[in-house]
């Protein structure tokens, strides 16, 4: 017997505004709304509602809203409603709880406890409307030898690098976890912006090879869709060792999201769950990682930087140090708030550490060891605004990965049910009639708008600090101050408390 669980959110319809047009009914893949012919009015079944706001946004008369349900068990600080419901759910099904998107629990958000500096009197702020304000970043190794040709000119001894017009890239989201149209929008937006998007572990649809010079191709433990043309097409190759939302386990793609096209792209059977192994079975240690890095470099003639992506875990500084000595050009670190298309809830909500602390300790460790210029550092999970980007760079990042913000720009309302595959916004679904709701032209424009806006804000903030190039912001921790942080937190972040002088 399944225990009834009262819905967490309720659909509220204003009968004075509703005109019975049935748009909400047609828009809801979860079949929440229906027209009651006897009563001649719309009705809703809130138990099916995921609170994606599709109906709210499309209702022509704004007759709908979704509210948090007031139904509650006896108040209990230890056994809150959600905790109790999850026990019921597991007793009903015997299954592992699955969730989507980033950890929603109220852990500290260090970005919000860090404040930025600005110039006053002794050094002038710079006005980005009137002076150049540079946000171009090159990612990759900077360490190289100084060599000259016969005429005394410097020779280019650098390893391959990626050039970004702004220190923001779209993070890995696989085709399969998100739709064809979403992938197309990311690819086109990255191309227009002069930055990169990331295929995630699902391979690259043949239609998108044309965006290869702005594409980072991922090689994950499942090796889905990995073959020579794929590696050759990307501008860089990312080895995914871990993901912030689910450190220690591999990707989960439910069979119902594996359409014919996804199946062809991933090179796996249609309709069968795609569960990536937790480890790469050819990498059980750091020396194995080195071999994979050089295998990939060898197979692409040393023309592409290799990124190694790891989840932020307790020992991330030592792990990063090992990676920096293993031939990787870029280390991507994914914080425990990073998004996912599907992850076991307990893992998502309890494993890993905040990206702010992971970044600070990795950057400090690599500098202590004198190997910070062996690699660039890219951080994600979760970067929510341009201010987060600026703080991340000042802590020591070269650039940031964004994904949740990118899907929000395309229309996502963070209902956190991507794993169900019925995304009403056409993003995290493979159902053709849902996918076509996402217009790639519009989504591209919205992504370009978002990143362009952030870049303007980054320029404004840098100008205020008297910094006119993002290179001079990187690792510039004197520009940061903590508020309400304890001594240990300040030490790990390597910053002083607000009110403390330079």
């Amino acid at each position, binding site marked *: 017997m399944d225990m009834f669980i009262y819905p967490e959110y309720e659909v509220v319809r204003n009968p004075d505004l509703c005109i019975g047009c049935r748009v909400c009914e047609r828009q809801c893949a979860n079949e929440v709304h229906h027209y009651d012919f006897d009563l001649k009015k719309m009705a809703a079944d809130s138990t099916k509602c995921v609170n994606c706001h599709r109906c709210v946004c499309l209702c022509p008369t704004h007759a709908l809203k979704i509210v948090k349900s007031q139904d509650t068990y006896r108040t209990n600080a230890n056994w809150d409603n959600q905790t109790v419901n999850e026990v019921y759910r597991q007793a009903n099904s015997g299954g592992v709880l699955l969730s989507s998107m980033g950890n929603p629990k109220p852990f500290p958000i260090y970005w919000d406890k860090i404040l930025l500096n600005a*110039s006053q009197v*002794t050094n002038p702020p710079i006005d980005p409307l009137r002076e150049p304000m540079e946000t171009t970043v090159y990612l990759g190794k900077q360490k190289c030898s100084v060599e000259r040709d016969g005429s005394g000119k410097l020779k280019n001894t*650098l390893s391959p690098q990626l050039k970004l017009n702004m220190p923001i890239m779209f993070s890995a989201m696989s085709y399969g976890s998100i739709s064809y149209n979403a992938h197309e929008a990311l690819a086109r937006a990255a191309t227009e912006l002069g930055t990169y998007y990331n295929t995630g572990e699902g391979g690259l649809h043949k239609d998108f090879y044309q965006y290869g010079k702005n594409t980072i191709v991922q090689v994950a433990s499942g090796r889905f869709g990995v073959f020579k043309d794929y590696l050759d097409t990307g501008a860089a190759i990312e080895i995914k060792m871990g993901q912030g939302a689910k450190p220690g386990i591999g990707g989960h793609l439910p069979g119902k999201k594996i359409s014919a096209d996804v199946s062809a792209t991933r090179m796996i059977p249609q309709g069968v769950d795609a569960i990536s192994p937790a480890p790469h079975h050819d990498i059980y240690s750091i020396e194995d990682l080195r071999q994979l890095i050089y295998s990939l470099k060898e197979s692409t003639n040393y023309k592409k930087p290799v990124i190694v992506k790891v989840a932020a875990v307790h020992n991330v500084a030592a792990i990063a140090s090992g990676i920096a000595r293993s031939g990787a050009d870029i280390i991507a670190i994914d914080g425990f708030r990073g998004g996912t298309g599907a992850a076991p809830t307990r893992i998502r909500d309890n494993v890993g550490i905040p990206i702010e602390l992971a970044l600070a300790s990795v950057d400090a460790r690599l500098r202590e060891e004198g190997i910070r210029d062996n690699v660039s550092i890219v951080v994600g999970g979760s970067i929510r605004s341009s201010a987060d980007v600026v703080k991340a760079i000042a802590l020591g990042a070269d650039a940031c990965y964004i994904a949740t913000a990118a899907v929000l720009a395309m229309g996502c309302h963070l209902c956190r049910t991507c794993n169900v595959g019925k995304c009403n916004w056409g993003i995290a679904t493979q159902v053709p009639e849902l996918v076509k709701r996402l217009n790639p032209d519009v989504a591209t424009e919205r992504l370009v708008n978002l990143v362009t806006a952030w870049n303007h804000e980054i320029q404004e903030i840098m100008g205020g600090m008297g910094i006119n190039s993002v290179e001079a912001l990187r690792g510039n921790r004197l520009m940061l101050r903590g508020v309400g942080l304890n001594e240990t937190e300040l030490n790990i972040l390597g910053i002083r408390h607000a009110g403390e002088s330079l």
Partner: protein
Amino acid sequence: MLKKEGEIRIPAGCAISGVIDRSGARMSGECMIESISTMHDRSNGLGGGFAGYGIYPDFKDFYALHLFYDNTAAQRETEEFLKRHFEIAYCSAIQTRKVASIKDEPIIFRYFVSPLPRKLEASQLDEEEYVARCVFRVNVEIAGAYVFSSGKNMGIFKAVGFPEDVGKFYKLEEYEGYAWTCHGRYPTNTPGWWGGAHPFGLLDYSVVHNGEISSYDANRRYIEMFGYKCTLKTDTEVITYIFDYLLRKRKLTLQEAAKVVAASFWATIDTKSEAEREQEILLRRMFPSLLITGPFSIILGFEGGLMALNDRLKLRSMVCGEKGDKAYIASEECAIRVIEPELDKIYSPAGGEAVVYTLKNGGKRE
């Protein structure tokens, strides 16, 4: 209690001036005193100093170490350290005269040294790196001792006070060099510590600087990876180390180093010839963390020459003048005119434009 320089970072405005006789003819330090004193209002009496090149011809093959000691215990400990690492050719207190406004002077000593051959060989370092590391060890490890000058045939003289008083204090009229630089400081705090005055030097390199760089911590955290220890937390210190790293350790040319620290904007680079574009992009990609932003005007002193450089937006004033073999660099034109009213040429270098004046005999001293 106010913190000492090095425990906190103190922003400062300043005046700088420099002169070189490209024929190699030597002049006393008095002209610099006269030059800097016209810019009296750009300093506030909390720091002044001079660097002279070619001033120790009799000991030109020895490193001239200038040291401040807070007490005799620090001196004893340092001298033991120096004896373990160097042959000391000559040592004495640096001669000074009493000047009413200069107070609280530390013990000021000078040593002409050369590395002990056996120690040098055992260290597997080249001679300059050996000396630089010894300087860092004294400054970091011996409390109350501070090496403030460590080049060959050059010397730095500095103190808390107005620069013209500092010049009199050190009897600069008794030294003759082919090049001089000087500095008057306007810190926004009262450091009261002599080591915090400028010029700042390491080996032959000395830097006088006017400005407050916004890239400080990015530069510091990068350069510290290569063994430099920023004990003073001043811009001048980190700028000196950057030039030492780029010029001495990475063997860049002066113009290349200038393109690293005051890189052309990407948009400007795009307009250059292909050859120049390629080189400048390469330098920015190789040393992005050594780009210096925020206002600065500096004079870099080195064996055989001076280099003037402004930040790429030219947020600090700086002019260059020439008269015959002599070349002048200063924060304000008046500081040049006061010592040479009739100039062949005077101009204001653009932001990021390095002006290099070297001795005529290929940059080497006579």
